[in-house]
């Protein structure tokens, strides 16, 4: 090998490393968005808290690994999500200043929720569904942050994630995020049929926001590719359970909700009973408890969106 080839090779390697470095850099929100953040309203934030299902992972689990409804305000973390990539442990997001997020600024919180980047500039694993939360409004983020601040401080750090190589290399998530993180809506208004009546349209858009954003329904109800990214071509069509046994039902036309009316869906989210009076089960029990805490119009909005999903 000649000297010049060696030099060229070296330059190439350095260039590739630099490219990888830049491509995997944790990103944060633009300064102008962070500057526009104003303190939120804790009372409004309570509804965002339930819409977002925070407690279904971050609540304090009992001895059986279930978060009882009375522990939903104790955000100690500790729930284990056993997945194909390894075991993720939900962290403490209580208002504790050392073990939780009590020392965070609103900008720290907005970056975590919308960009999946921690206050110390590291990538979060997408077991934390920022891929959905990225679609939330800054107003909801601020309100939620204000509400979390009113919940008790719970001491104690949750255990670390247990992940195998290469998934234990956090930096690699920078590339994953480039492929999978977007704040754009999943289903266009056109694909939802763009209803002419303003009232109907506004209900549908509210439903889209709740399902695609805070509700993060797609994180379980949509199949994932080999790298764990959501397959948007099969949006809400059902999937293998990401943790535990069983299959998650499909919500889009041609799957498990075909016999359900919008009223049936809203009633299920309120009561936990299907039209056949089967009861909610598995992880959906906790989700349904959250949905029951929303305004009736929000459950109707979710139902309207699900019924308007395009078939394939």
């Amino acid at each position: 090998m000649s000297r010049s080839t060696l030099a060229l090779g070296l330059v190439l390697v350095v260039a590739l490393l630099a490219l990888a470095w830049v491509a995997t850099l944790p990103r944060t929100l633009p300064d102008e968005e962070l500057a526009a953040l104003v303190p939120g309203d804790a009372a409004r934030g309570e509804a965002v808290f339930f819409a977002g299902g925070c407690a279904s992972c971050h609540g304090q689990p009992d001895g059986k690994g279930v978060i009882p409804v009375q522990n939903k305000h104790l955000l100690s973390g500790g729930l284990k999500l056993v997945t194909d990539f390894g075991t993720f442990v939900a962290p403490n997001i209580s208002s504790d200043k050392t073990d939780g997020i009590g020392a965070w600024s609103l900008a720290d919180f907005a970056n975590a929720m919308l960009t999946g980047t921690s206050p110390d500039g590291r990538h979060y694993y997408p077991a934390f569904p920022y891929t959905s939360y990225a679609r939330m409004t800054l107003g909801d983020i601020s309100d939620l942050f204000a509400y979390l601040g009113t919940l008790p401080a719970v001491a104690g750090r949750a255990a670390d994630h247990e992940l195998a190589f290469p998934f234990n290399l956090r930096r690699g998530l920078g590339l994953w995020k480039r492929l999978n993180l977007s704040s754009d809506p999943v289903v266009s208004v056109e694909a939802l049929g763009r209803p002419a009546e303003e009232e109907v349209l506004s209900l549908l858009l509210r439903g889209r926001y709740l399902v695609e954003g805070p509700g993060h329904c797609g994180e379980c109800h949509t199949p994932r590719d080999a790298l764990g990214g959501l397959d948007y071509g099969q949006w809400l069509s059902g999937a293998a359970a990401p943790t535990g046994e069983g299959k998650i039902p499909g919500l889009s036309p041609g799957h498990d909700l075909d016999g359900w009316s919008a009223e049936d869906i809203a009633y299920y989210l309120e009561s936990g009973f299907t039209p056949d009076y089967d009861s909610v089960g598995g992880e959906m029990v906790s989700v349904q408890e959250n949905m029951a805490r929303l305004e009736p119009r929000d459950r109707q909005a979710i139902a309207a969106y699900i019924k308007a999903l395009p078939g394939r």
Partner: protein
Amino acid sequence: MVRTIAASTLALALLGAVAAQAAGDPVATRKAIMQSVAGAAGLSGAMMKGEVAYSPAAGKAAISSFNAAGHTFGDYFPEGSQAGDTTAAAKIWEDRAGFEAAVAKLADAAGAAMQASGKDGPADVEAFKAAVGPVLGTCRDCHQVYRTR
């Protein structure tokens, strides 16, 4: 009224089917028991929502189905019946005591509803709601842990 009677008859017929299968396949047996619960819950829900006119006899039929299920369902999960066409979670066999406690909650709630029903069944739909509400409240707790969704 016709629908009420039809639904009550269905609930009773399902219970009859349970008895006939009891000696056979445990998976089929426990499914039949839970189908009778679903039938009774469907009738209860329809009456509580006013889709079907309430009658004390229909109310009592539903509560009787819950009660019978609460007393029998837990007996049909022997070792080896984890496999096959079932949505029973592995957790049942890992945590038998917890599962039995969950089924006992159904039996207790349904037993109390039977007591409240008296000879003729709950007198009106409000009394029925009060009796059956706690029974329906036990479904989710068990399904959260011991059923694969």
